């Protein structure tokens, strides 16, 4: 196919169920994982 889309978290959708603050502090943000999503796996 001319365009293939990778499986990514849609940031706009995380507006409604993000912000719990349980993730690690970051010194990084790019390689951080969402604590809620880890628990749900």
């Amino acid at each position: 196919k001319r365009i293939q889309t990778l499986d990514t978290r849609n940031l706009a959708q995380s507006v409604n169920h993000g912000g719990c603050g349980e993730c690690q502090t970051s010194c990084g943000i790019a390689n951080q994982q969402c604590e809620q999503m880890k628990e749900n796996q």
Partner: protein
Amino acid sequence: MVHQYKNNGYNIVLDANSGSVHVVDDVAYDIIALYEDHTPQEITAAILEKYADQPDVTETEIQETLRDIEQLKKDGRLFSEDTYENLAWDFKNRSTVIKALCLHIAHDCNLACKYCFAGKGEYCGDKALMSFEVGKQALDFLIANSGTRHNLEVDFFGGEPLMNFDVVKQLVAYAREQEKIHNKNFRFTLTTNGVLLTDEVMEFANKEMYNVVLSLDGRKETNDRLRVTRNGKGSYDMIVPRFQKMAELRHQEGYYVRGTYTHYNTDFAKDILHIADLGFKQLAMEPVVADPKEDYALKEEDLPVLLEQYDILAQEMLRRSRKGNGFTFFHYMIDLAGGPCIYKRISGCGVGTEYMAVTPWGDLYPCHQFVGNEKFKLGDVFHGIQNTELRDEFKLCNVYARKECHDCFAKMFCSGGCTANAYHATGSLTGTYQLGCDLHRKRIECAIMLKVAEAMDQESNTNEEHSL
């Protein structure tokens, strides 16, 4: 905002505001580049002209690709808008809990690394070790100010924290008692130069430390140029065997061998690969942040070489990974499917609000890189935050406070970058450290490329299995 780039043979399209990543062929790449500023008719004519020698590029094909792009746009996966700015200010207004402390357990060090931002571990002040009483008060302060947060983090930092190992052990034991009482989960990290890394320390760290950062700069000649003992001897031969033992005892997880590269080793990919060849699997390598007058400071003219090094590293990592001998590089770890939510991405690392550093005598600073600068003292662990004006200034440190970030594709992957680096480079908490930005953008591009390669490899493996 859409960012298009080519890397390692892949055409990559990043939709920065949604986080979507697309891998496309040359035709789609060109159509997307024209999409916003041209009509479908203009795009069709331009593409047919450019690909006139390719019979499979037909008007029908182009129309189909345009429809795919339109659908992705409707789905919020391409050309999506940045609608998050108000969230950044709202989130900062309500988020005042503290969830992490960096305990400066020792303002003293048994090495004298020439580039150390902490000035041989002493932070431009007197040598000092944190007492158990101060550390205990810091943990109590953290628990009391953590609200409903369950996960709390404490970094044992210095200087060299193992110069005060007994207090580290006492504080961990105290925290383990308190976490049961208060329904908290402490995650400890330890950053060490390895000089005092004994079997006893390793056993303790493997039981209690969520993560350990082991400092090594790479090849022996690289490491020993700047990471020296108090009498000027190199540290490589002393620490490498200890780090190797530590990594094996931790089953190659929950640690980083973390180096610093400088103007003296702009070919730093060789240092990273050297560390990998020593058997380490979790690696990090950071650019030195230094006064431009220092001989080891990175210079603007170093930038093209440094950017190329990140490409060399990514390609070699991919090659090794495909052979089953891969390793992890801190800045190339990116979880596209399970990464942080938008609130985290726009609000940053929490410097001065969610995260603070504690000096050996209990003073609170926004982070470890502000310690020693009296004007950034926030208060102390005995009386709490007293300089609320300063704390409120840090509350406003988010990606939207930095005008240079507005049109940057990487802003959702760095949250505006390191506030301390920005301050030291520009004198402003909401400035940006341009060299750091240039390097970080490149790292994000390489990290996404590796994810694309992984996805494409998986797809071709699946296709091969189906054809058998």
